[in-house]
């Protein structure tokens, strides 16, 4: 049963990732990325990491992708008209580099087969909100607080960068 679910979710994840890269329309790409993240959340559930599955849907598929869609609609981006219309050396080189990187990773994994055959039985209590929160608010309290500062700094920095008022080089302010 778990094997079938894994195969289904893995095929969904890979197909949506490829569709995201190949799609000419930016909005469709973003929606395929949402699908990819939902299938990854399902895989986290199979790995018995319930807390992170929920966080994945809330933060990634919810917040970050809504931000992406907002920016796409705000900028009114055109489609990439000439994408994949004709063969280019650049595409071939990119594909070649991808194959090389993939081969490297698979070679590294392939050296250690039968490493960990089964999910650890401890995982049933490790993956819950209770267990993660327990560790997060005791051992990792300081990094957690620093994350808050990081997010605040990111928001302030984004406001600074995306400010409306810009100085042109010809001296005319908008």
């Amino acid at each position, binding site marked *: 049963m778990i094997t079938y679910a894994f195969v289904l979710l893995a095929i969904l994840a890979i197909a949506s990732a490829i569709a995201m890269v190949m799609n000419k329309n930016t909005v469709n790409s973003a929606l395929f990325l949402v699908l990819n993240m939902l299938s990854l959340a399902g*895989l986290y559930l199979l*790995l018995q990491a319930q807390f992170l599955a929920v966080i994945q849907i809330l933060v990634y598929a919810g917040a970050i992708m809504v931000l992406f869609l907002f920016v796409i609609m705000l900028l009114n981006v055109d489609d990439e008209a000439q994408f994949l219309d004709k063969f280019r050396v650049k595409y071939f080189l*990119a594909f070649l580099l991808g194959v090389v990187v993939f081969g490297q990773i698979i070679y590294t994994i392939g050296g250690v087969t039968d490493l960990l055959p089964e999910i650890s039985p401890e995982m049933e209590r490790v993956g819950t909100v209770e267990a993660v929160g327990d560790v997060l608010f005791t051992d990792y309290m300081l990094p957690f607080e620093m994350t808050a500062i*990081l997010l605040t700094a990111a928001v302030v920095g984004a406001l600074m960068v995306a400010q409306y008022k810009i100085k042109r080089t010809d001296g005319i302010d908008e």
Partner: protein
Amino acid sequence: MIEIDWYLALSAVLFTTGLIGVLVRRNAIVLFMCIELMLNAVNLSLISFASYHGNTEGQILVFFALAVAAAEAVVGLAIIIAIFRNQLSVDITRVNLLRW
């Protein structure tokens, strides 16, 4: 049961897809989404290692990676908006002011 190798292989496939996307696409927003895809692939391998070892630390690391990814997305999209204001395009081949 599924061995951990399959999760790692899936993670490798997703990472490679994102990498090829970064190299091939020219739209800055799609490029950004490909980077998010690569981050997600690494998160998947971290979580699979965490759960096959029965270890909470890996999940905590993924939690912090998620927070950093959110911050990175916010700042990156702000930069894309700033570029669009100046160039009226998000085509990264047209952002060549610093190119030699």
